Each structure stands twice: as C-alpha cells, then as structure tokens.
C-alpha cells in the first residue's frame, strides 16, 4: 500500500485510517459549516491533475492544512469531542508531508507552476472567508481531498 504522486512515492500511510479518522469528525464539522454556497476545493482545482503536478499540489495543500487549519483547530476539536480522530488525521498528514519530497531542481518544469496556480485558487477562496469559518470549511472538505488522493493510492 503506497501513494504515488508522480515522482513522489510514500509508504506507510493507510488511506483507510485517514477515512476512518475523517468519518469520526465529518458530521460535526460539516454541520458547523453553514456557508453552503462556497466550496474551497472546487473541481477546477483537483480535476485532471497530471502526475507531474500531483506531488507539488499535495505538498502545498498538506502544508497549508497543517499550518493554517490543524494547528489552530486543536481546541475546537476538543470542544467537539473529536480530538483523538482529529489528531490521527493531523499526525498522518504530518508523516505524509514529511515523506513527500517534490523535486526542487526541476521546479522550472510545468508541474510546479500549474500546481501552484491550482493551490492559489484554493488559498484565495480560503482568504475570502472569515478565518474561523474558512478553517471549519476546509476541515469539512477533507473528504474531497481524500477522494482525490485515492486516485494516487495503490493497494
């Protein structure tokens, strides 16, 4: 079982564990997101991502999720009584991020730039919302992220 994001191969992460952790927090987090007219991970961000882009994109997304969402959501997770699942998800994302090594020397190639444009679409949508609402929405959209990641997962 491994993820293969283009050139980036990651072993030791079980996708089912990520899903199980998310299912435990999904209903309560999504219920807190009442901005139903905004979707951060829109189709144009995750559709038709090439292998060359995929490592850069997942690296940027995971880094953003960890630094901007998970880092600031611990207390809320405790309030919602989902801290354990929340931590499982966060820890798996930390391990996944640490194992992703997007090639630095060929950043000039197309993968990096188009991945960057996709990520900026996400970040821009995020910044247009109140920070707390945006964090809740992004966390509630981890199922969209996992569904996309599933395409790069091999049993």
């Amino acid at each position, binding site marked *: 079982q491994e993820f293969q994001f283009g050139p980036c191969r990651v072993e030791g992460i079980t*996708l*089912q564990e990520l*899903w199980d952790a998310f299912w435990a927090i999904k*209903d309560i987090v*999504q*219920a807190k997101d009442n901005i*139903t*007219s*905004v*979707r951060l991970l*829109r*189709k144009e961000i995750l559709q038709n991502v090439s292998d060359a882009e995929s490592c850069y994109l997942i690296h940027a997304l995971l880094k953003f999720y960890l630094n901007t969402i998970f880092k600031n959501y611990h207390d809320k997770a405790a309030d919602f009584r989902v801290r354990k699942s929340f931590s499982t998800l966060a820890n798996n994302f930390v391990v996944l991020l640490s194992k992703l090594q997007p090639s630095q020397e060929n950043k000039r190639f197309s993968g990096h730039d188009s991945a960057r444009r996709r990520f900026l679409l996400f970040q821009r949508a995020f910044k247009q919302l109140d920070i707390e609402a945006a964090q809740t929405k992004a966390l*509630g959209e981890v*199922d*969209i992220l996992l*569904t996309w990641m*599933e395409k790069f997962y091999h*049993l």
Partner: protein
Amino acid sequence: HLAEDTSDLLQHVKFQSSNFENIVTWDSSPESAPDTVYSVEYKKYGEREWLAKEGCQRITRKSCNLTVETGNLMELYYARVTAVGAGGRSATKMTDRFSSLHHTTIKPPNVTCIPKVRSIQMIVHPTSTPIHTGDGHQLTLEDIFHDLSYHLELQVNHTYLMHLGGKQREYEFIGLTPDTEFLGTIRIFVPTLLKESAPYVCQVKTLPDRTWT
C-alpha cells in the same frame, strides 16, 4: 418579538440512499396539521442558487426522489424542505452535506441458486444503478466500486459453514450430500468504503442421486 417555534412542522430532513436511489425524507410532529404542505429544493455544494424540485412543490407526502438531480458521483449536494402549515406558519430545514458515493447503502445482490446432485451453483447477477455515464451507459455497482467483491456462505449443518468469495460472478459449492437442504447467503462487500449489503438468502435442496436406482 420572539421568533415563533415552528419545529413541530418539520423534523429529521435527510437523504436516504440505497443503490444510488437518493430520496429526501422528513417528519413532522403528531401535533402538526395534516394539511401542511412541503416544497423541496436542492443544489450542489458550492453553488449559490437553490433549484426547486419539480414534482415536489406544495406536496403533502414526506419524501421526494432526487435520484436524477443528485446523480453525479463526484459532486456533493444539499437539499432543503420548506413546510407551510395552517395560518401560514412555515419552517425550512436543510439536509447534511450529501455524497451518494459515500452515503448509499448496498441492497442484497440478485442471485440464482442452482441445486445439483452433489453441488450447488450460485450465479450473481450484476446490479444496475440509476447512474449513467456521459454517453448514457448505465453503470452497475461493479462499475462504480472497483474493489467490490462477493462473500458466499453455505450452512452445511449446525457447526459447519462453507465459504467462497471473490470478484467473479459464478461460484459452486461442491462435495455435498445428495437430497439434502442447505442455506446459502450471499453479500456484497466494498472494503474501502466499509460497505456491506444485507444478505441474499436461498434455501435449496440438492437433487437425489439416481445413479444406482
């Protein structure tokens, strides 16, 4: 001015989905007037506009079929119901975010159990769904769930259970006693999404052995 409590008009608005047949259902409390009428709207998550569901406007029943409208497996949806009761009292409630791929339950498979003298053959028929591809091809559960598999059991006696399983559709339990009753159960499994169907059950009797008569 205190907002009037209209929770009696509308409760438990939710999607119920089975083999991708997506139905919105709701309740009202017993005290609510029988002439309450309901109107249903739906939209994709991320879109602004709510769309009225034709055929579910000012209805008195408490369900509405949104299978066609929520048929894109890669989309997430919301539905909402507005109830209008006597004296113009009204209430509106929304479902949770709905993904048919993740929320649908799996019905028992359709199976033909064929008894022979010393074996029982089981043929699982493909399960069609209301989901179509862009070019109109109707998808089966097997098309949608790539890791779908079948688990078959044959109860031989109180203590002995035979097992077969896999992705193929034809199976045969062999080495059985002629002219004997057996109970077969067949389930569908989708491991990655933790889905398991209720069992299809068939009670069959192997044929008598007439070779020496």
